[in-house]
C-alpha cells in the first residue's frame, strides 16, 4: 500500500498540474460579454438580449431606453431583418411590448450567417432606425 501511495501521489500531483495547464489554455477562449448588439439612435438606446440565435423560428427580445436610461415607450416598434451577405430581406414584423421598454418579435431565420436587424421606432411624426447585428447559427 505504501509503495502504491509513493507512486500515486506524485502522479496525481503531476496530473493536477496538467489539468491546470489545460484549463489555462482552453479557458482563454475569446468570449467577451454575452450581451447583444447595441445601437444609439436619436434619443434611444436599443439593445438586443443576445448576439446569436438558432436557425429557424426565434423570438427576438430587445430593450429600448431613452437618454436618461429609462424604459422608452414609443408609439410603434417594428423589426426588419435583412441578410446583406445574401441580399435578401424578411417581411417586417411589429414588435410587441412585454413590459415598459421591453419588446419581443417572432422571426423565422431561414439561413445561418450575419443578419442586420433594423429596429424602426416611431413616435409621433418622428422615426428612428437602429441597425443591430445578429448571428444566426445552426
Amino acid at each position: 500500500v505504501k509503495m502504491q501511495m509513493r507512486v500515486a501521489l506524485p502522479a496525481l500531483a503531476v496530473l493536477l498540474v496538467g489539468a491546470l495547464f489545460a484549463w489555462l489554455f482552453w479557458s482563454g477562449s475569446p468570449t467577451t460579454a454575452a450581451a447583444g448588439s447595441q445601437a444609439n439612435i436619436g434619443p434611444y438606446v436599443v439593445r438586443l438580449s443576445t448576439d446569436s440565435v438558432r436557425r429557424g423560428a426565434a423570438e427576438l427580445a430587445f430593450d429600448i431606453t431613452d437618454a436618461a436610461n429609462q424604459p422608452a415607450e414609443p408609439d410603434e416598434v417594428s423589426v426588419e431583418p435583412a441578410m446583406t451577405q445574401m441580399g435578401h430581406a424578411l417581411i417586417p414584423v411589429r414588435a410587441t411590448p412585454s413590459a415598459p421598454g421591453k419588446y419581443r418579435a417572432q422571426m423565422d431565420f431561414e439561413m445561418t450567417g450575419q443578419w442586420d436587424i433594423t429596429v424602426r421606432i416611431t413616435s409621433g411624426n418622428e422615426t428612428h432606425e437602429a441597425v443591430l447585428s445578429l448571428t444566426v447559427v445552426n
Partner: protein
Amino acid sequence: MSLLTTGAGVSGADGGPVGADLHVAQTLGERELTVVIRRTGPRLGPLPVEVVTHAPTTGTLRLSASSPSATTSTGTVELGAVPGVHRAELAVDKVGAWELAITDGTTTARIPFVVPAQVVPPWQRASDFGFAAAGVLVAVALVLALRARRSWMPWIPVMGAVVALSVGMTGAAMSAQFPPPPQAGRDVDPSIPAITDPYGQVRLNAQAAVGLTRAPLILDLSGAVVAGQPSTVRLNFLDSATGRPADDLVVHHGALVHLMIVSPAGELLHLHPVRVGPGRYEVTVRSSATGVHALAVEAGRRGGGTQQMRASITVQPGAAATRPASVAPVSDTASGASGEVSVDVAATGVPSTIRSRFGDDPTLQPWLGMIGHLIVVGPMPPSGDERGEAAAAAPIWSHGHAMPPAAPGAVGGQPDESVATFGPQVDFVYTFPRPGRYQIWVQAERDFTVLTASTEVEVTAS
C-alpha cells in the same frame, strides 16, 4: 411632415483593414485630407490619429471616437499654413466597431474602424496544449521510472507524451498553412462575435455555403451644382438586391469612395466623398464651368471586389459663371505644368507604356498608398469645350496605379505620406481596348501637394 433619422449604424458600418494602419482620403468641405488611424487593439488605450493636409489651410477640426456603450473620446487638430501632418491622440476602451467623426463645423465625416480582440487560433491552442501536455507526461514518466515497481508503467506516460508532442508539432507546422479567418470589417460585418471569434465565422460560412461577396451597389446621386459656388453632391449607396442603404463599403486604395470628375474643359478632379451616415456620402464640388461634367465613382463592398459607377451632372450657371473655365480648387489639385506625360502608343490589344515625369527630384510621396494614379478616358472626340459630355459618353474609363516598391521587413502596412523618396519618373502599362482618341491623366504627390499631368493619345486598331 415626418422626420426620419438613421443611426450612425456603427454595428454594421463601412470599414477598413484590421490590425494595420487605416489611411482614408477625405474631401471634407473644400479640404482634401488624408486621415490616418494608427493600428489599435487588442491592447486598449491610446488611439493616435493623423490628419494630413494637401494645401495651406487654417482652422480647427474636431475629432471624436465613439462606439455604442463605450466612452467617447475627443480631440482637436489645428491646421496650419504649411501642408503636412497634424496629430491628435484619442483613446479606445472597448473591442468592437468604432466610428471616428471629424467635423469642420459644417460637415461631419464618419469613418468606421474596428478595434480588434486578441484571438488565439485553434492550431496555436493545439500546439501550446500539445507541448505543455508532453512536458507534464515526461515528468510523470520520470517519476514512474524512479518509483514504480513494474517496468512497463513509465511507458504509458511516454506513449502519451509522444501523442501530445505530435499534436503540438502538427499544430505548429500547420500554422503557416491555415488560411486566416474572415476579417471582421473587411470580409464580414464587424459584430462582436465576428471580432472575438473569427473562427466561428468560418463555421458559419461553411454552413451557409455562400461566398462572402455581396450584391452590386446602386449609386443614387443628387444635389444641384451651381457654377462658381461650393455645392454639395450627395451620393447614396444602396444594396441592389434589397434597396436598403449599403453601409458596408470598405477602404480600398486609401478611400471609402473615389470620385473622379471631368469638367467641360477636360480637367480632372479626384475627390473622396465623406460618409455622413449609413450608406450616405457627401462631397463639396466647386466648378466655375457650366455644362455637363462626367463622373466615375469607385467603391467596394465588404466581402471583396470593387465596382465602378458612371454618372454625369450638369452644372447650372451662377452669378460668377464663366465658360469654359478652370475647375477651382476643391481637391487642391494643381493642374497642368507640374508634370509631363509621354506615351509609347501601341495598337489596341497590345500593352502601351505611359511614362510620366514630375520635376527632377526623387521626392514624390505616396498618395492614396500609390506613387502614381493613372486615369484613362476614351475613345472620345478631339479636344473641344465639351470634354465632360464626351467623357460621360466614353465607353472606357480606367483607373490604374503605380505601386510603391515593397519595403522588406516593413510592418504596419503601406508607407505613409511622410515618405518622400519616390519618382520622379512614374510609369504605367496600359492596354487600350478600342481604337480612338483617349485623354490620360497622371496624378502624384510632392510636398503634400497633389500634382496632375495630362495628355491625349490616338490609338489605332491592331
